[in-house]
Protein backbone atom coordinates (compact mmCIF):
# COMPACT_ATOMS: atom_id res chain seq x y z
CA UNK A 1 0.00 0.00 0.00
CA UNK A 2 3.06 2.30 -0.20
CA UNK A 3 1.93 3.73 -3.53
CA UNK A 4 -1.58 4.06 -2.11
CA UNK A 5 -0.30 6.34 0.62
CA UNK A 6 1.68 8.35 -1.92
CA UNK A 7 -1.43 8.97 -4.02
CA UNK A 8 -3.43 9.80 -0.92
CA UNK A 9 -0.91 12.53 -0.13
CA UNK A 10 -1.04 13.81 -3.72
CA UNK A 11 -4.84 14.02 -3.66
CA UNK A 12 -4.80 15.70 -0.28
CA UNK A 13 -2.17 18.23 -1.38
CA UNK A 14 -4.08 19.11 -4.55
CA UNK A 15 -7.29 19.53 -2.59
CA UNK A 16 -5.58 21.65 0.04
CA UNK A 17 -4.10 23.85 -2.72
CA UNK A 18 -7.48 24.37 -4.36
CA UNK A 19 -9.09 25.29 -1.05
CA UNK A 20 -6.34 27.41 0.46
CA UNK A 21 -5.20 29.44 -2.54
CA UNK A 22 -8.48 31.40 -2.78
CA UNK A 23 -8.39 32.06 0.95
CA UNK A 24 -4.79 33.24 0.83
CA UNK A 25 -5.50 35.31 -2.28
CA UNK A 26 -8.51 36.92 -0.62
CA UNK A 27 -6.55 37.79 2.52
CA UNK A 28 -3.76 39.22 0.38
CA UNK A 29 -6.18 41.18 -1.80
CA UNK A 30 -8.04 42.58 1.21
CA UNK A 31 -4.76 44.03 2.56
CA UNK A 32 -3.68 45.68 -0.70
CA UNK A 33 -5.74 48.84 -0.26
CA UNK A 34 -2.89 51.12 0.72
CA UNK A 35 -0.51 51.50 -2.18
CA UNK A 36 2.82 49.74 -1.72
CA UNK A 37 2.21 48.31 1.75
CA UNK A 38 -0.03 45.74 3.35
CA UNK A 39 -2.58 47.23 5.70
CA UNK A 40 -5.89 46.55 7.35
CA UNK A 41 -7.44 49.69 5.85
CA UNK A 42 -10.15 47.78 4.02
CA UNK A 43 -11.24 46.08 7.25
CA UNK A 44 -11.26 49.43 9.08
CA UNK A 45 -13.40 51.02 6.40
CA UNK A 46 -15.80 48.08 6.30
CA UNK A 47 -16.17 47.71 10.05
CA UNK A 48 -16.58 51.45 10.45
CA UNK A 49 -19.23 51.65 7.76
CA UNK A 50 -22.60 52.49 9.28
CA UNK A 51 -24.42 50.44 6.68
CA UNK A 52 -22.27 47.43 7.55
CA UNK A 53 -23.24 47.73 11.21
CA UNK A 54 -26.91 48.35 10.44
CA UNK A 55 -27.33 45.53 7.90
CA UNK A 56 -25.28 43.10 9.96
CA UNK A 57 -27.38 43.79 13.05
CA UNK A 58 -30.53 43.43 10.96
CA UNK A 59 -29.40 39.99 9.77
CA UNK A 60 -28.36 38.93 13.27
CA UNK A 61 -31.80 39.83 14.60
CA UNK A 62 -33.45 38.07 11.64
CA UNK A 63 -31.32 34.98 12.36
CA UNK A 64 -32.34 34.97 16.03
CA UNK A 65 -36.03 35.21 15.15
CA UNK A 66 -35.55 32.49 12.53
CA UNK A 67 -34.00 30.20 15.13
CA UNK A 68 -36.84 30.85 17.60
CA UNK A 69 -39.48 30.22 14.92
CA UNK A 70 -37.65 27.09 13.73
CA UNK A 71 -37.46 25.67 17.26
CA UNK A 72 -41.13 26.43 17.94
CA UNK A 73 -42.17 24.58 14.80
CA UNK A 74 -39.71 21.71 14.75
CA UNK A 75 -39.29 20.64 18.38
CA UNK A 76 -42.97 19.93 19.15
CA UNK A 77 -43.44 18.21 15.79
CA UNK A 78 -40.34 16.00 16.07
CA UNK A 79 -41.21 15.17 19.70
CA UNK A 80 -44.80 14.35 18.90
CA UNK A 81 -43.84 12.13 15.99
CA UNK A 82 -41.49 10.13 18.21
CA UNK A 83 -44.07 9.87 20.96
CA UNK A 84 -47.40 9.39 19.25
CA UNK A 85 -47.31 9.48 15.46
CA UNK A 86 -44.35 7.46 14.17
CA UNK A 87 -46.51 6.51 11.17
CA UNK A 88 -46.41 10.03 9.71
CA UNK A 89 -42.62 10.28 9.93
CA UNK A 90 -42.11 9.62 6.18
CA UNK A 91 -44.52 12.44 5.30
CA UNK A 92 -42.82 14.89 7.64
CA UNK A 93 -39.35 13.90 6.48
CA UNK A 94 -40.44 14.42 2.90
CA UNK A 95 -41.77 17.89 3.70
CA UNK A 96 -38.58 18.87 5.52
CA UNK A 97 -36.61 17.89 2.41
CA UNK A 98 -38.73 20.09 0.13
CA UNK A 99 -36.68 23.26 0.72
CA UNK A 100 -33.74 21.40 -0.81
CA UNK A 101 -35.88 20.64 -3.87
CA UNK A 102 -37.57 24.00 -4.31
CA UNK A 103 -34.97 26.72 -4.86
CA UNK A 104 -35.12 29.67 -2.45
CA UNK A 105 -35.82 32.04 -5.31
CA UNK A 106 -38.95 30.08 -6.23
CA UNK A 107 -40.21 30.03 -2.64
CA UNK A 108 -39.81 33.77 -2.26
CA UNK A 109 -41.39 34.34 -5.68
CA UNK A 110 -44.40 32.41 -4.41
CA UNK A 111 -44.53 34.59 -1.29
CA UNK A 112 -44.43 37.78 -3.34
CA UNK A 113 -47.36 36.63 -5.46
CA UNK A 114 -49.40 35.04 -2.67
CA UNK A 115 -48.95 37.50 0.18
CA UNK A 116 -48.95 40.80 -1.76
CA UNK A 117 -50.76 43.93 -0.59
CA UNK A 118 -54.05 42.92 -2.24
CA UNK A 119 -54.13 39.36 -0.98
CA UNK A 120 -56.20 38.04 1.95
CA UNK A 121 -53.00 37.77 4.02
CA UNK A 122 -51.14 40.98 3.06
CA UNK A 123 -47.74 40.33 4.64
CA UNK A 124 -46.08 42.63 2.13
CA UNK A 125 -48.34 45.60 2.90
CA UNK A 126 -46.28 46.67 5.92
CA UNK A 127 -42.62 46.69 6.92
CA UNK A 128 -43.27 44.51 9.95
CA UNK A 129 -45.15 42.04 7.79
CA UNK A 130 -42.34 41.88 5.25
CA UNK A 131 -39.79 41.36 8.02
CA UNK A 132 -41.95 38.56 9.36
CA UNK A 133 -42.17 37.04 5.88
CA UNK A 134 -38.37 37.14 5.57
CA UNK A 135 -37.99 35.33 8.90
CA UNK A 136 -40.59 32.80 7.75
CA UNK A 137 -38.72 32.30 4.48
CA UNK A 138 -35.46 31.80 6.36
CA UNK A 139 -37.17 29.28 8.62
CA UNK A 140 -38.18 27.24 5.56
CA UNK A 141 -34.57 27.36 4.28
CA UNK A 142 -33.32 26.15 7.66
CA UNK A 143 -36.08 23.54 8.06
CA UNK A 144 -34.13 20.54 6.68
CA UNK A 145 -31.16 21.21 8.94
CA UNK A 146 -33.15 22.09 12.03
CA UNK A 147 -35.40 19.05 11.75
CA UNK A 148 -32.51 16.66 11.24
CA UNK A 149 -30.55 18.12 14.15
CA UNK A 150 -33.50 17.93 16.55
CA UNK A 151 -34.57 14.47 15.38
CA UNK A 152 -31.02 13.15 15.88
CA UNK A 153 -31.04 14.65 19.36
CA UNK A 154 -34.37 13.03 20.22
CA UNK A 155 -33.11 9.67 19.02
CA UNK A 156 -30.53 9.61 21.82
CA UNK A 157 -33.05 10.04 24.64
CA UNK A 158 -35.91 7.85 25.74
CA UNK A 159 -38.77 10.17 24.87
CA UNK A 160 -41.55 7.88 26.03
CA UNK A 161 -40.15 7.11 29.48
CA UNK A 162 -39.25 10.74 30.14
CA UNK A 163 -42.74 11.84 29.14
CA UNK A 164 -44.48 9.20 31.23
CA UNK A 165 -42.30 9.99 34.24
CA UNK A 166 -43.13 13.67 33.91
CA UNK A 167 -46.82 12.91 33.53
CA UNK A 168 -46.82 10.75 36.65
CA UNK A 169 -45.27 13.67 38.51
CA UNK A 170 -48.16 15.80 37.29
CA UNK A 171 -46.52 17.85 34.53
CA UNK A 172 -48.61 19.35 31.72
CA UNK A 173 -47.57 19.35 28.07
CA UNK A 174 -45.96 22.78 28.27
CA UNK A 175 -43.86 21.75 31.25
CA UNK A 176 -42.89 18.46 29.62
CA UNK A 177 -41.63 20.14 26.46
CA UNK A 178 -39.91 23.14 28.02
CA UNK A 179 -38.54 21.55 31.19
CA UNK A 180 -37.98 17.91 30.28
CA UNK A 181 -37.56 17.44 26.53
CA UNK A 182 -35.93 20.73 25.51
CA UNK A 183 -33.09 20.59 28.09
CA UNK A 184 -32.31 17.06 26.93
CA UNK A 185 -32.04 18.00 23.26
CA UNK A 186 -30.57 21.45 23.92
CA UNK A 187 -27.23 20.56 22.35
CA UNK A 188 -28.92 19.31 19.20
CA UNK A 189 -31.14 22.39 19.05
CA UNK A 190 -28.10 24.63 19.45
CA UNK A 191 -26.29 22.81 16.61
CA UNK A 192 -29.29 23.42 14.40
CA UNK A 193 -29.37 27.02 15.59
CA UNK A 194 -25.76 27.74 14.67
CA UNK A 195 -26.18 26.12 11.28
CA UNK A 196 -29.27 28.25 10.75
CA UNK A 197 -27.26 31.31 11.75
CA UNK A 198 -24.53 30.46 9.22
CA UNK A 199 -27.12 30.04 6.45
CA UNK A 200 -29.15 33.13 7.27
CA UNK A 201 -26.49 35.71 8.03
CA UNK A 202 -25.33 36.32 4.46
CA UNK A 203 -28.46 35.16 2.62
CA UNK A 204 -29.00 37.25 -0.48
CA UNK A 205 -31.91 36.03 -2.62
CA UNK A 206 -34.85 36.33 -0.25
CA UNK A 207 -33.66 39.51 1.45
CA UNK A 208 -33.01 41.17 -1.88
CA UNK A 209 -36.33 40.23 -3.46
CA UNK A 210 -38.24 41.30 -0.35
CA UNK A 211 -36.25 44.57 -0.33
CA UNK A 212 -34.98 44.09 3.21
CA UNK A 213 -31.85 45.98 4.41
CA UNK A 214 -30.04 42.74 5.25
CA UNK A 215 -26.36 41.80 5.18
CA UNK A 216 -26.53 39.77 1.97
CA UNK A 217 -27.81 42.58 -0.30
CA UNK A 218 -25.29 44.92 1.37
CA UNK A 219 -22.49 42.51 0.48
CA UNK A 220 -23.69 42.36 -3.10
CA UNK A 221 -23.90 46.15 -3.28
CA UNK A 222 -20.34 46.60 -1.97
CA UNK A 223 -19.13 43.94 -4.40
CA UNK A 224 -20.58 45.84 -7.33
CA UNK A 225 -19.09 49.19 -6.30
CA UNK A 226 -15.81 48.71 -4.43
CA UNK A 227 -12.49 47.02 -5.06
CA UNK A 228 -10.83 45.92 -1.80
CA UNK A 229 -13.66 45.97 0.71
CA UNK A 230 -15.37 42.89 -0.79
CA UNK A 231 -12.28 40.80 -0.09
CA UNK A 232 -12.26 41.98 3.51
CA UNK A 233 -15.96 41.15 3.77
CA UNK A 234 -15.36 37.69 2.30
CA UNK A 235 -12.78 37.01 5.02
CA UNK A 236 -15.17 38.28 7.71
CA UNK A 237 -17.95 36.07 6.31
CA UNK A 238 -15.63 33.06 6.22
CA UNK A 239 -14.67 33.72 9.84
CA UNK A 240 -18.35 33.84 10.83
CA UNK A 241 -19.09 30.54 9.05
CA UNK A 242 -16.00 29.01 10.65
CA UNK A 243 -17.11 30.25 14.07
CA UNK A 244 -20.57 28.71 13.71
CA UNK A 245 -19.18 25.36 12.57
CA UNK A 246 -16.59 25.30 15.38
CA UNK A 247 -19.30 25.97 17.94
CA UNK A 248 -21.29 23.05 16.52
CA UNK A 249 -18.22 20.81 16.80
CA UNK A 250 -17.51 21.91 20.35
CA UNK A 251 -21.16 21.33 21.28
CA UNK A 252 -21.16 17.88 19.72
CA UNK A 253 -18.47 16.89 22.21
CA UNK A 254 -20.89 17.60 25.01
CA UNK A 255 -23.75 15.78 23.33
CA UNK A 256 -23.01 12.15 24.32
CA UNK A 257 -23.09 13.04 28.02
CA UNK A 258 -26.79 13.71 27.93
CA UNK A 259 -27.33 10.85 25.51
CA UNK A 260 -25.77 8.23 27.77
CA UNK A 261 -28.26 8.83 30.54
CA UNK A 262 -31.28 6.90 29.34
CA UNK A 263 -32.53 6.42 32.93
Amino acid at each position, binding site marked *: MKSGRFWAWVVFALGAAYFFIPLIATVEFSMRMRRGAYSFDAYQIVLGDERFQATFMYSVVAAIFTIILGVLIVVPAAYWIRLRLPQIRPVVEFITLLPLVIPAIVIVFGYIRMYGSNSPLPFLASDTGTNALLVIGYATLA*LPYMYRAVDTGLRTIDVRTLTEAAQILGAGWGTIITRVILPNVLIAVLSGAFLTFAIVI*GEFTMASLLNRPAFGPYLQNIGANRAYEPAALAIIAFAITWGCMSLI*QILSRFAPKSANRPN
Partner: protein
Amino acid sequence: MTDLSLSNQAIAGKTAPPAEARRLRLPTQWLGVTPFFVFAIMFLILPTLYLMLGAFQNDAGEFTFENIAALAQPSIVAAYWISIKVSLASALIGAFAGLAIAIAIVRGGLPDWIRSATLTFSGVASNFAGVPLAFAFLATLGRLGLATVILNTVFGLNIYAHGFNILSFWGLTLTYVYFQIPLMVVIITPAIDGLKKEWGEAAATLGATTAQYWRMVVIPVIWPSFLGTVILLFANAFGAIATAYALTGSSLNIVPILLYAQIRGDVLHNAHLGYAIAFGMIVITGLANVFYIWFRTRSERWLK
Protein backbone atom coordinates in the same frame (compact mmCIF):
# COMPACT_ATOMS: atom_id res chain seq x y z
CA MET B 1 -37.53 0.59 -9.31
CA THR B 2 -40.44 -1.77 -8.83
CA ASP B 3 -39.65 -2.79 -5.29
CA LEU B 4 -39.17 0.84 -4.30
CA SER B 5 -42.54 1.89 -5.61
CA LEU B 6 -44.00 -1.10 -3.82
CA SER B 7 -42.45 -0.10 -0.52
CA ASN B 8 -43.67 3.46 -1.02
CA GLN B 9 -47.15 2.19 -1.51
CA ALA B 10 -46.76 0.09 1.56
CA ILE B 11 -45.73 3.14 3.56
CA ALA B 12 -48.58 5.17 2.16
CA GLY B 13 -50.98 2.35 2.90
CA LYS B 14 -49.71 2.13 6.45
CA THR B 15 -49.94 5.84 7.18
CA ALA B 16 -53.26 6.86 5.72
CA PRO B 17 -55.93 4.63 7.32
CA PRO B 18 -54.88 4.87 11.01
CA ALA B 19 -54.57 8.62 10.61
CA GLU B 20 -58.20 8.79 9.53
CA ALA B 21 -59.34 6.48 12.26
CA ARG B 22 -57.53 8.37 14.99
CA ARG B 23 -58.62 11.78 13.86
CA LEU B 24 -62.20 10.70 14.42
CA ARG B 25 -61.47 9.28 17.82
CA LEU B 26 -59.10 11.84 19.28
CA PRO B 27 -58.28 15.09 17.46
CA THR B 28 -55.75 16.16 20.13
CA GLN B 29 -53.53 13.42 18.75
CA TRP B 30 -52.51 15.88 16.05
CA LEU B 31 -51.91 18.83 18.34
CA GLY B 32 -48.12 18.63 18.46
CA VAL B 33 -47.65 18.49 14.71
CA THR B 34 -50.25 21.14 13.87
CA PRO B 35 -47.89 24.14 13.89
CA PHE B 36 -45.50 22.25 11.64
CA PHE B 37 -48.16 21.34 9.09
CA VAL B 38 -49.78 24.77 9.12
CA PHE B 39 -46.37 26.34 8.55
CA ALA B 40 -45.38 23.87 5.82
CA ILE B 41 -48.68 24.23 3.97
CA MET B 42 -48.85 28.02 4.19
CA PHE B 43 -45.26 28.89 3.49
CA LEU B 44 -43.86 26.01 1.52
CA ILE B 45 -46.52 24.02 -0.28
CA LEU B 46 -49.18 26.61 -1.14
CA PRO B 47 -46.77 29.26 -2.53
CA THR B 48 -45.17 26.60 -4.71
CA LEU B 49 -48.52 25.26 -5.89
CA TYR B 50 -49.64 28.82 -6.58
CA LEU B 51 -46.72 29.29 -8.96
CA MET B 52 -47.20 25.90 -10.55
CA LEU B 53 -50.86 26.59 -11.22
CA GLY B 54 -50.00 30.10 -12.43
CA ALA B 55 -47.70 28.54 -15.00
CA PHE B 56 -50.78 27.00 -16.63
CA GLN B 57 -52.97 30.09 -16.55
CA ASN B 58 -53.20 33.22 -18.66
CA ASP B 59 -53.95 36.72 -17.39
CA ALA B 60 -57.67 35.99 -17.44
CA GLY B 61 -57.13 32.94 -15.25
CA GLU B 62 -57.96 30.44 -17.98
CA PHE B 63 -56.10 27.18 -18.38
CA THR B 64 -53.39 27.31 -21.04
CA PHE B 65 -50.14 25.72 -22.15
CA GLU B 66 -48.99 29.00 -23.72
CA ASN B 67 -46.63 29.90 -20.88
CA ILE B 68 -44.92 26.53 -20.98
CA ALA B 69 -44.70 26.77 -24.77
CA ALA B 70 -43.22 30.26 -24.44
CA LEU B 71 -40.29 28.75 -22.53
CA ALA B 72 -39.07 27.53 -25.91
CA GLN B 73 -37.88 30.99 -26.94
CA PRO B 74 -34.11 31.01 -27.57
CA SER B 75 -33.05 33.27 -24.69
CA ILE B 76 -34.86 31.13 -22.10
CA VAL B 77 -33.69 27.85 -23.58
CA ALA B 78 -30.15 29.23 -23.54
CA ALA B 79 -30.53 30.17 -19.87
CA TYR B 80 -31.73 26.68 -18.95
CA TRP B 81 -28.98 25.12 -21.01
CA ILE B 82 -26.15 27.10 -19.40
CA SER B 83 -27.62 26.45 -15.95
CA ILE B 84 -27.75 22.74 -16.62
CA LYS B 85 -24.21 22.75 -18.00
CA VAL B 86 -22.75 24.65 -15.04
CA SER B 87 -24.66 22.54 -12.51
CA LEU B 88 -23.71 19.28 -14.18
CA ALA B 89 -20.05 20.19 -14.69
CA SER B 90 -19.63 21.47 -11.13
CA ALA B 91 -21.50 18.44 -9.75
CA LEU B 92 -19.34 15.95 -11.66
CA ILE B 93 -16.03 17.68 -10.93
CA GLY B 94 -17.04 18.18 -7.31
CA ALA B 95 -18.17 14.57 -6.99
CA PHE B 96 -15.03 12.96 -8.40
CA ALA B 97 -12.68 15.30 -6.55
CA GLY B 98 -14.67 14.88 -3.35
CA LEU B 99 -14.68 11.11 -3.71
CA ALA B 100 -10.91 11.08 -4.27
CA ILE B 101 -10.37 13.20 -1.17
CA ALA B 102 -12.75 11.07 0.91
CA ILE B 103 -10.99 7.87 -0.16
CA ALA B 104 -7.61 9.47 0.53
CA ILE B 105 -8.53 10.47 4.08
CA VAL B 106 -10.36 7.26 4.98
CA ARG B 107 -8.30 4.60 3.23
CA GLY B 108 -5.07 6.34 2.26
CA GLY B 109 -3.21 5.76 5.51
CA LEU B 110 -2.90 9.47 6.20
CA PRO B 111 -2.46 10.66 9.80
CA ASP B 112 -5.70 10.90 11.81
CA TRP B 113 -5.54 14.66 12.28
CA ILE B 114 -5.77 15.11 8.50
CA ARG B 115 -9.05 13.26 8.44
CA SER B 116 -10.65 15.31 11.19
CA ALA B 117 -9.20 18.58 9.86
CA THR B 118 -10.51 17.81 6.36
CA LEU B 119 -13.97 16.97 7.65
CA THR B 120 -14.11 20.11 9.78
CA PHE B 121 -12.94 22.26 6.92
CA SER B 122 -15.46 20.61 4.59
CA GLY B 123 -18.25 21.48 6.99
CA VAL B 124 -17.19 25.10 6.83
CA ALA B 125 -16.49 25.30 3.10
CA SER B 126 -19.75 23.58 2.11
CA ASN B 127 -21.55 26.41 3.89
CA PHE B 128 -19.27 29.11 2.55
CA ALA B 129 -21.31 29.99 -0.50
CA GLY B 130 -23.22 32.96 -1.73
CA VAL B 131 -21.84 36.44 -2.22
CA PRO B 132 -18.60 36.12 -0.17
CA LEU B 133 -17.52 33.11 -2.22
CA ALA B 134 -17.78 35.21 -5.36
CA PHE B 135 -15.58 37.86 -3.73
CA ALA B 136 -12.97 35.25 -2.84
CA PHE B 137 -12.79 34.00 -6.43
CA LEU B 138 -12.65 37.50 -7.85
CA ALA B 139 -9.68 38.15 -5.54
CA THR B 140 -8.08 34.91 -6.78
CA LEU B 141 -8.85 34.60 -10.47
CA GLY B 142 -10.18 38.04 -11.37
CA ARG B 143 -8.08 40.22 -13.64
CA LEU B 144 -6.07 41.51 -10.65
CA GLY B 145 -6.43 38.35 -8.56
CA LEU B 146 -3.46 36.78 -6.85
CA ALA B 147 -3.45 33.58 -8.89
CA THR B 148 -3.87 35.50 -12.15
CA VAL B 149 -1.00 37.85 -11.28
CA ILE B 150 1.35 35.10 -10.09
CA LEU B 151 0.65 32.94 -13.14
CA ASN B 152 1.42 35.94 -15.32
CA THR B 153 4.54 37.29 -13.59
CA VAL B 154 6.16 34.05 -12.41
CA PHE B 155 5.10 31.55 -15.06
CA GLY B 156 4.52 34.02 -17.90
CA LEU B 157 1.03 32.62 -18.43
CA ASN B 158 -1.61 35.27 -19.01
CA ILE B 159 -4.77 33.24 -18.53
CA TYR B 160 -6.99 36.10 -19.65
CA ALA B 161 -5.11 36.30 -22.95
CA HIS B 162 -5.78 32.59 -23.35
CA GLY B 163 -9.50 33.11 -23.16
CA PHE B 164 -10.12 32.45 -19.48
CA ASN B 165 -12.62 34.71 -17.80
CA ILE B 166 -13.98 34.42 -14.28
CA LEU B 167 -17.28 35.76 -15.65
CA SER B 168 -17.81 32.72 -17.82
CA PHE B 169 -18.98 29.14 -17.81
CA TRP B 170 -15.65 27.79 -16.53
CA GLY B 171 -15.19 30.64 -14.08
CA LEU B 172 -18.58 29.96 -12.52
CA THR B 173 -18.05 26.19 -12.56
CA LEU B 174 -14.67 26.51 -10.85
CA THR B 175 -16.28 28.72 -8.20
CA TYR B 176 -19.20 26.36 -7.57
CA VAL B 177 -16.76 23.48 -7.15
CA TYR B 178 -15.56 25.25 -3.99
CA PHE B 179 -18.75 24.28 -2.16
CA GLN B 180 -19.49 21.14 -4.19
CA ILE B 181 -16.31 19.22 -3.25
CA PRO B 182 -16.74 19.72 0.51
CA LEU B 183 -20.39 18.74 0.30
CA MET B 184 -19.36 15.52 -1.46
CA VAL B 185 -16.70 14.84 1.17
CA VAL B 186 -19.20 15.36 4.00
CA ILE B 187 -21.82 13.07 2.43
CA ILE B 188 -19.64 10.32 0.96
CA THR B 189 -17.18 9.83 3.84
CA PRO B 190 -19.72 7.89 5.95
CA ALA B 191 -20.42 5.68 2.92
CA ILE B 192 -16.73 4.85 2.60
CA ASP B 193 -16.51 4.32 6.36
CA GLY B 194 -19.39 1.89 5.92
CA LEU B 195 -17.29 -0.43 3.79
CA LYS B 196 -16.74 -3.23 6.24
CA LYS B 197 -13.24 -4.51 6.87
CA GLU B 198 -14.61 -8.06 6.68
CA TRP B 199 -15.49 -7.57 3.01
CA GLY B 200 -11.88 -6.78 2.19
CA GLU B 201 -10.72 -9.78 4.23
CA ALA B 202 -13.32 -12.03 2.66
CA ALA B 203 -12.27 -10.90 -0.80
CA ALA B 204 -8.62 -11.50 0.05
CA THR B 205 -9.42 -14.97 1.45
CA LEU B 206 -11.14 -15.84 -1.81
CA GLY B 207 -7.99 -14.75 -3.62
CA ALA B 208 -9.08 -11.40 -5.00
CA THR B 209 -6.46 -8.87 -5.98
CA THR B 210 -6.74 -5.27 -4.77
CA ALA B 211 -8.02 -4.23 -8.20
CA GLN B 212 -10.68 -6.96 -8.14
CA TYR B 213 -11.71 -5.99 -4.61
CA TRP B 214 -12.23 -2.40 -5.75
CA ARG B 215 -13.96 -3.29 -9.00
CA MET B 216 -16.25 -6.01 -7.66
CA VAL B 217 -16.91 -4.92 -4.08
CA VAL B 218 -16.12 -1.27 -3.38
CA ILE B 219 -17.43 0.37 -6.53
CA PRO B 220 -20.76 -1.53 -6.64
CA VAL B 221 -21.40 -0.68 -2.99
CA ILE B 222 -20.45 3.01 -3.22
CA TRP B 223 -22.00 3.56 -6.66
CA PRO B 224 -25.59 4.33 -5.55
CA SER B 225 -24.57 6.83 -2.87
CA PHE B 226 -22.09 8.36 -5.30
CA LEU B 227 -24.67 8.84 -8.05
CA GLY B 228 -27.23 10.03 -5.54
CA THR B 229 -24.85 12.65 -4.25
CA VAL B 230 -23.98 13.79 -7.78
CA ILE B 231 -27.67 14.49 -8.29
CA LEU B 232 -27.91 16.31 -4.97
CA LEU B 233 -24.93 18.46 -5.97
CA PHE B 234 -26.60 19.16 -9.29
CA ALA B 235 -29.80 20.39 -7.64
CA ASN B 236 -27.72 22.35 -5.15
CA ALA B 237 -25.95 24.26 -7.94
CA PHE B 238 -29.06 24.62 -10.09
CA GLY B 239 -31.01 26.68 -7.57
CA ALA B 240 -28.07 28.81 -6.44
CA ILE B 241 -28.11 32.44 -7.46
CA ALA B 242 -26.17 34.64 -5.03
CA THR B 243 -22.68 33.49 -6.06
CA ALA B 244 -23.40 33.81 -9.76
CA TYR B 245 -25.11 37.15 -9.38
CA ALA B 246 -22.28 38.66 -7.32
CA LEU B 247 -19.68 37.16 -9.65
CA THR B 248 -21.07 37.95 -13.04
CA GLY B 249 -23.85 40.48 -12.49
CA SER B 250 -26.22 39.56 -15.24
CA SER B 251 -23.55 38.87 -17.86
CA LEU B 252 -23.99 35.10 -17.53
CA ASN B 253 -27.66 34.43 -17.99
CA ILE B 254 -28.37 31.36 -15.87
CA VAL B 255 -32.00 30.51 -15.05
CA PRO B 256 -32.09 31.78 -11.44
CA ILE B 257 -30.65 35.12 -12.59
CA LEU B 258 -33.23 35.33 -15.38
CA LEU B 259 -35.99 34.59 -12.87
CA TYR B 260 -34.51 37.16 -10.47
CA ALA B 261 -34.60 39.83 -13.17
CA GLN B 262 -38.14 38.79 -14.07
CA ILE B 263 -39.36 39.08 -10.46
CA ARG B 264 -37.66 42.46 -10.02
CA GLY B 265 -38.78 44.08 -13.24
CA ASP B 266 -40.85 41.79 -15.46
CA VAL B 267 -38.10 41.84 -18.10
CA LEU B 268 -39.99 39.24 -20.13
CA HIS B 269 -43.14 41.43 -20.16
CA ASN B 270 -45.34 38.50 -19.18
CA ALA B 271 -45.97 37.77 -15.51
CA HIS B 272 -47.09 34.21 -16.19
CA LEU B 273 -43.88 33.45 -18.05
CA GLY B 274 -42.12 34.00 -14.70
CA TYR B 275 -44.33 31.28 -13.21
CA ALA B 276 -43.43 28.99 -16.08
CA ILE B 277 -39.70 29.54 -15.48
CA ALA B 278 -40.15 28.77 -11.78
CA PHE B 279 -42.17 25.69 -12.74
CA GLY B 280 -39.36 24.53 -15.01
CA MET B 281 -36.85 24.93 -12.18
CA ILE B 282 -39.01 22.90 -9.81
CA VAL B 283 -39.44 20.18 -12.41
CA ILE B 284 -35.68 19.88 -12.93
CA THR B 285 -34.67 19.93 -9.24
CA GLY B 286 -37.68 17.75 -8.42
CA LEU B 287 -36.69 15.09 -10.95
CA ALA B 288 -33.12 15.26 -9.68
CA ASN B 289 -34.31 14.63 -6.13
CA VAL B 290 -36.55 11.74 -7.12
CA PHE B 291 -33.46 10.04 -8.52
CA TYR B 292 -31.49 11.03 -5.43
CA ILE B 293 -34.01 9.39 -3.09
CA TRP B 294 -34.09 6.31 -5.27
CA PHE B 295 -30.31 5.92 -5.25
CA ARG B 296 -30.12 6.60 -1.52
CA THR B 297 -32.66 3.89 -0.78
CA ARG B 298 -30.58 1.48 -2.80
CA SER B 299 -27.34 2.42 -1.08
CA GLU B 300 -28.80 2.14 2.42
CA ARG B 301 -29.40 -1.55 1.85
CA TRP B 302 -25.68 -2.13 2.08
CA LEU B 303 -24.49 0.54 4.41
CA LYS B 304 -26.66 -0.17 7.41
